[in-house]
């Protein structure tokens, strides 16, 4: 019993340590062992990479101790990347993916086929962070304001460390959706005063979170800013249809009760006739 408690304590200690483990990639080259116990034998593997720099990930098959093969199809999913699935197996023990994350956020690494230990291979994450080293320091401001009842005006301004405007450079505007995804809504180019503007569609009462990302380059550093806006509410100009109505429309419910009720009452009449046959 005592030994069991000690083992349990050690196991809990070990698990709590791995859940907080974060590998830092240096040189944007990462090696990951893939086994039934997870990525690098962790069910919640996590690694940081820098946005705007090439990342090379090498996956290595690590289920050799199994009698049979346990292939894994590894996929990296997330906003801003479109990567192929790679396979590691006994016959194909290593696979490499190279990509350049364009903006900050979290990418998910997972095995997309049923395999032994698949529950440990769905929670890996790659955190794309702002570059630690970059060019000249840049200031990026983002301002959101209602343009009309159905759109928001996003205005960005890019200046260098001395406050001078930076013109003719693209800035990505990314809408962070309410379901956790991201949509690039536009890539405006700054004009002579370092500003750029873009119209984003919005609904009355909708809360929008928008990121503006400048990738840097040509001696300029990476810059990012996030802003939020909640659109003012407005009365609906069109009444909701029955399908989207939260409560059952009375007329519909009444009609259903009358139609279906009449049919079933008639069935009852027919059943009465049938059971009365016995009397005749």
């Amino acid at each position, binding site marked *: 019993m005592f030994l069991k408690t000690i083992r349990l304590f050690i196991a809990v200690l070990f698990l709590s340590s791995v859940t907080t483990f974060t590998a830092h990639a240096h040189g944007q080259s990462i090696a990951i062992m893939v086994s039934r116990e997870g990525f690098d034998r962790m069910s919640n593997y996590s690694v940081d990479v820098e946005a705007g720099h090439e990342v090379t990930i090498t996956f290595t098959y690590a289920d050799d101790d199994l009698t049979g093969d346990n292939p894994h199809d590894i996929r990296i999913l997330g906003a801003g990347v479109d990567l192929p699935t790679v396979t590691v197996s006994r016959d194909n023990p290593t696979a490499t993916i190279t990509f350049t994350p364009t903006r900050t956020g979290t990418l998910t690494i997972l095995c997309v086929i049923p395999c032994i230990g698949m529950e440990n291979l769905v929670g890996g994450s790659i955190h794309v962070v702002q570059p630690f080293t970059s060019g000249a320091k840049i200031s990026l401001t983002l301002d959101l304001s209602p343009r009309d009842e159905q759109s928001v005006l996003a205005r960005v301004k890019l200046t260098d460390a001395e406050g001078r405007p930076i013109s003719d450079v693209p800035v990505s505007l990314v809408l962070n959706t309410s379901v956790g995804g991201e949509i690039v809504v536009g890539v405006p180019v700054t004009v002579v005063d370092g500003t750029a503007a873009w119209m984003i569609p919005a609904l009355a009462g909708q809360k929008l979170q928008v990121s503006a990302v400048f990738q840097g380059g040509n001696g300029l550093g990476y810059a990012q800013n996030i802003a939020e806006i909640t659109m003012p509410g407005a009365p609906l100009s069109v009444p909701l249809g029955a399908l989207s109505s939260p409560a059952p429309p009375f007329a*519909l419910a009444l009609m259903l009760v009358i139609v279906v009720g009449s049919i079933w009452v008639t069935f009852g009449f027919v059943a009465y*006739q*049938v059971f009365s046959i016995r009397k005749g």
Partner: protein
Amino acid sequence: MTALLAKLLGSSTEDFDKLNTHEKALLRPVFVWGRGFYLTVAFLALIFGFGVFAYLTQLRDGLAATGMRDTVSWGLYIINFVFFIGISHVGALLSSILRLTGAKWRHPITRMAESITFAALLFGALMPIIDLGRPERMFNLIFSGRIQSPILWDIISITTYLTGSSIFLLLPLIPDMALLRDKFIHAPAWRRWIYRILSFGWTGTPEQHARLDRAMNTMAVLILPIAVMVHTVVSWIFAMTLRPGWNSTIFGPYFVAGALASGAASVVLAMVVFRKMYRLEEFITLKHFKYMAALVLTLNLAYIYFNISEYVTLAYKMEGAEKAVLASLFSGQFAGLFWVTQLLGLIVPAFLLVLPMIKPMTWIKRLRVLPPMLLAAISALFLGASLATSFFNTFIGFDPSLVALAFLLGGLAFGGWATLTLIPWLQARPIPTFVIAAALIVIQAWLKRFIIVVPVLEQPFITDAAFEGALYNPTWVEWGITAGALAGFLLVYLILSRMVPIVSVWETKHGEVEETVSGPAHALPQPAGVSSPEV
């Protein structure tokens, strides 16, 4: 073995010998169960068992065992559902309309139609539950259903229709149940119990007849709108969405027309099988086939009209999101299936159904300079050459279209010639011709549901690189369940036809037989040299 089964399940030649001629003609399949019946049941039960095994696999592994995913989330199960509900309409149509119009020729075939309704609904209603993956979640619709959801309307209407169809099937069975109760006295206890309970103490008094007539007339009036309602609501499952390809205002009548056509065609198939299997030539005559063919033709033409209306209005505009769906049907991934279904499943059957009803085209015999097989072979040769020309000329380098087109036209010309020479053969054999047309329509009905469901879902609203190539490929589990459901449907239908007479005994008793024999069946035009219709 057969003797043992006969003892357990019920076969009595002793009782059978005491029946009168009319009863003997119709009740033989009920009284005498032979080896063929047992083998057929065993074969169908085997396929049904395989379907059950496939379903258990799905229960164990979840819907991941199917080809359905988040993009294409409806597949074979919903196709089967719409198909089964569709063919179930025929019972309501035939029995209700023909009863209300007093058409006596209906008597030998109404029970076949009503039984199709009952058996098809049983398996049609199961399909959405199978599609759920977690069947216990069906109760969520009852306890947490939203009355404004078409899914709930579907559940209500199908439950109502199944109840109504069961009553509609049962009512005209009551006098025949009483007949079996009185005459099948050596039946096993379980069958005697069924006949006793379902005969409701019928003795044939005038008052009982009056009550039965009242009940049957009421149901005849009621069942038709219910049937129309059910398939309209089934179509609304699709049409109430905003999906391109389903977002249509004519889906209700479009589905109802298709359902009635396929249901009527399935009765033609049932007629020919039972006629041969149960020796019912005396009751199901050429006249019945002719009338049914006219009905199938009318419904098929209505369905063709709805197809044209649906596709032409969309194709003329080719607007927005509809464009991708229509392009996949007209010239894309589903083009082959689409055109084959439209031509072989709708247009060709219409011609086949017309041919035996029109004057024999004797002049076509003059075209028979060469044997049809030789013409077909030449046609195939030309079509092959057309394909080959297209293929090789891409390497040679000159414009291949003209040569390929010439071969294609040649192939079509010879193919058309071969088909023309077959017309006298088809006109001389009305029943096989009707049956070929009916079979094509029933197959079309299933494929058409595939065309309605799958191509639309393969054009998702949001495309994501991670889920690109969202193609639907049904797995063996889905095919297994589909085969099992079809076998189960046939099994229920077959057993029903052996438990009760598939042609109503009491309704065909009073002169209808004579009427059917001496009716206008022989007024069908006969080609020269053909003495009687070949079956």
